[in-house]
C-alpha cells in the first residue's frame, strides 16, 4: 500500500498564538541560580576538603594548615590592616602597570606597523622579553633611590613585554581590507594609528594586558617580600615570620581575591571596548 504524501496546511504550520507561547529562555531567579550549581558544588567540595585536611594534617595549638573558620576569623580581624596593605600595593601596581600599558601600546603599535622597525627592534625584544623580571629586583633596589620606585620599575618591566609584544602582533596582523581602506581614505601617521591600527589591535592588546596584569601582581608581591614596610606581599611575609598561619593564609586568600577583582575589572573594560566583536 502506497502512503500518500500529506503536505502541512497553513493551520498545521502555525498553530501557535505567539503571545501565549512561553519564552524559549527561562530567565527566572531559580534558573539563573541553577546555572551556578557546578561552581557551588566545587566551592563546597574545596571547603570540605580544606576542613578535613586541617583536621588530619595539622595538630597542636598553632597548626600549619588552619581551618577555614580560623582563617575567616583571622581575615575579619586583619581587614583594616589588609585594606592599608591593598592601598600600599596599588600605589606600586597602578603606576607600574599604567606606564607599561601606555608605553607598551605606543611602541608596540609603531613597531608592528613598520617592517623596518620590526627588523631593527624584534631581535632586541626576543632577547630582553624572556628574562624573568624577578632577576631585576636586587638590581632595581640597588640603583633606584627608594623601594617604591624599585618596585614600580619591576612591575613595569614585568607588564611591559607582554603588552608590547601583543600590541605589535595586533598591528602586524591588521586585516588587508582595513589597511587598503585606510590607504584609499588617505589616512597616515598618527591618524592612521589612532583610527585604524589601535582599534584593530585592541583584541591583542587586551590579551597582552591580561597577561601583563597577572605578571604585575606576581612581581608586586615578590618585590614586597624584599623590603617593603606595607603591602599585600609584606603582610603575608610578616605573619609567616611570626608563624601566624591563620593570618598568613588569610593574606594569601585576600591577595587572590584582589587579583581576581582586578582581572574581572579588566575583562569588563575589554568587553565594553571590543563591543563590535560581540
Amino acid at each position: 500500500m502506497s502512503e500518500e504524501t500529506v503536505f502541512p496546511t497553513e493551520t498545521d504550520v502555525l498553530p501557535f498564538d505567539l503571545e501565549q507561547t512561553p519564552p524559549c529562555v527561562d530567565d527566572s531567579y531559580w534558573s539563573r541560580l541553577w546555572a551556578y550549581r557546578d561552581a557551588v558544588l566545587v566551592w563546597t567540595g574545596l571547603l570540605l576538603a580544606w576542613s578535613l585536611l586541617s583536621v588530619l594534617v595539622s595538630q597542636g595549638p598553632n597548626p600549619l594548615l588552619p581551618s577555614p573558620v580560623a582563617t575567616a576569623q583571622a581575615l575579619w580581624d586583619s581587614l583594616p590592616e589588609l585594606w592599608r596593605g591593598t592601598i600600599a600595593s596599588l600605589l606600586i601596581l597602578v603606576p607600574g602597570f599604567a606606564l607599561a600599558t601606555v608605553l607598551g601600546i605606543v611602541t608596540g603599535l609603531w613597531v608592528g606597523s613598520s617592517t623596518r622597525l620590526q627588523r631593527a627592534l624584534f631581535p632586541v625584544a626576543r632577547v630582553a622579553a624572556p628574562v624573568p623580571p624577578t632577576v631585576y629586583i636586587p638590581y632595581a633596589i640597588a640603583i633606584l633611590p627608594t623601594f617604591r620606585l624599585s618596585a614600580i620599575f619591576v612591575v613595569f618591566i614585568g607588564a611591559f613585554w607582554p603588552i608590547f609584544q601583543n600590541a605589535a602582533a595586533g598591528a602586524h596582523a591588521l586585516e588587508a581590507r582595513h589597511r587598503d581602506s585606510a590607504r584609499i581614505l588617505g589616512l597616515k601617521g598618527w591618524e592612521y594609528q589612532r583610527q585604524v591600527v589601535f582599534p584593530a589591535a585592541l583584541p591583542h592588546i587586551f590579551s597582552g594586558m591580561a597577561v601583563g596584569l597577572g605578571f604585575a601582581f606576581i612581581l608586586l608581591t615578590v618585590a614586597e617580600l624584599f623590603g617593603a614596610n606595607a603591602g599585600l606581599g609584606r603582610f603575608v611575609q610578616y605573619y609567616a615570620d611570626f608563624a601566624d598561619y591563620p593570618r598568613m593564609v588569610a593574606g594569601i586568600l585576600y591577595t587572590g581575591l584582589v587579583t581576581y577583582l582586578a582581572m574581572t575589572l579588566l575583562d569588563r573594560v575589554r568587553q565594553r571596548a571590543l563591543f563590535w566583536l560581540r
Partner: protein
Amino acid sequence: MSDGLLLDNVSVHYGAMPILDRLRLEVPSGQRVSLLGASGSGKSTLLRLVAGLVKPNRGRLNWRGQPIQGTSLERGLVFQDYSLFPWLSMVDNVALAVGKAKPQAGKAERRETAVHFLRQVGLDEALGKFPFELSGGMQQRGAIARLLALGSPLLLMDEPFGALDPVNRARLQDLLVEICETARPRKTIVFVTHDVDEALYLGDRVIMLGSAPGRIIADLIVPPPRRRDRRTLFESATFHALREQIAACLQADTLQRLAA
C-alpha cells in the same frame, strides 16, 4: 596626453603567474566603463592598480596626465568585501571620508555631510548604528556612501552591488547613473561586475577581459542616449544585440580557456 585614465602596456604577475598581460586602455574623463570577465581575469587587480594599491611589473599608468604612484584621494575605490571599519558607527565611517575631502570642515559639518550621503543611499535608519548591526547589503551601501563622500573624480567600483537584494540593487544603480549625470565635472567610473545587464545599464562602454592572463577581448560602446530608462533600454533591439555579443565573447573565452 590623455585627460582621463591611461594604461599603457601594463603587465602584472604574482610570482610566476601572469594576471594581466600588456593591457592597453584609455578611458576619457567623464566616461563610465563596465568591466566584465570570468573570475580570475584580473578585473579586481586592474582596479587595485588604478587605485595605487598594486604596482605594475611593466608598463605605465596615468591619471589626468600624471603617473599613478600610490593611492590618492583623486581615485576612490569601493571594495568587493565589506570594508567599513567595524569600530566606527556608519556616520563616523563616512565622516572620516568627508574629513579627507573637506579638511577645513568642522566636526558638525563633517557629520552633517556624512548624514547627507548616508541618506542618499537609503540608510536613514542606520546613521548611528555600527556595521555589525546591519545586513551585508546595508554595509555595502555604507561603503558606497563613504566612496561618494570622498569626492574623488575617478570612482573605482569592484562588484559593489553584488551583495544587494534586487530592489536596493536597482535603486543604487539608478543613484549611480544620477550622480554621474548630475556631477559637474562628470565622474569617471570603472565598474566591475559579473552581471551583463548591469554592465550595459551603467556603462557608456563595456570592456571584457579574457582570462589566464587577463587581456582585453572586446571593447563595446553602448550607444546613447545617456538618460537611461531601465525598461526602454532592456526592451531595445540594441540592448539585445549587445547582450548576445557579450555572451558570445564570454563563451568563446571560456572555450578557449578549456581548450588550453
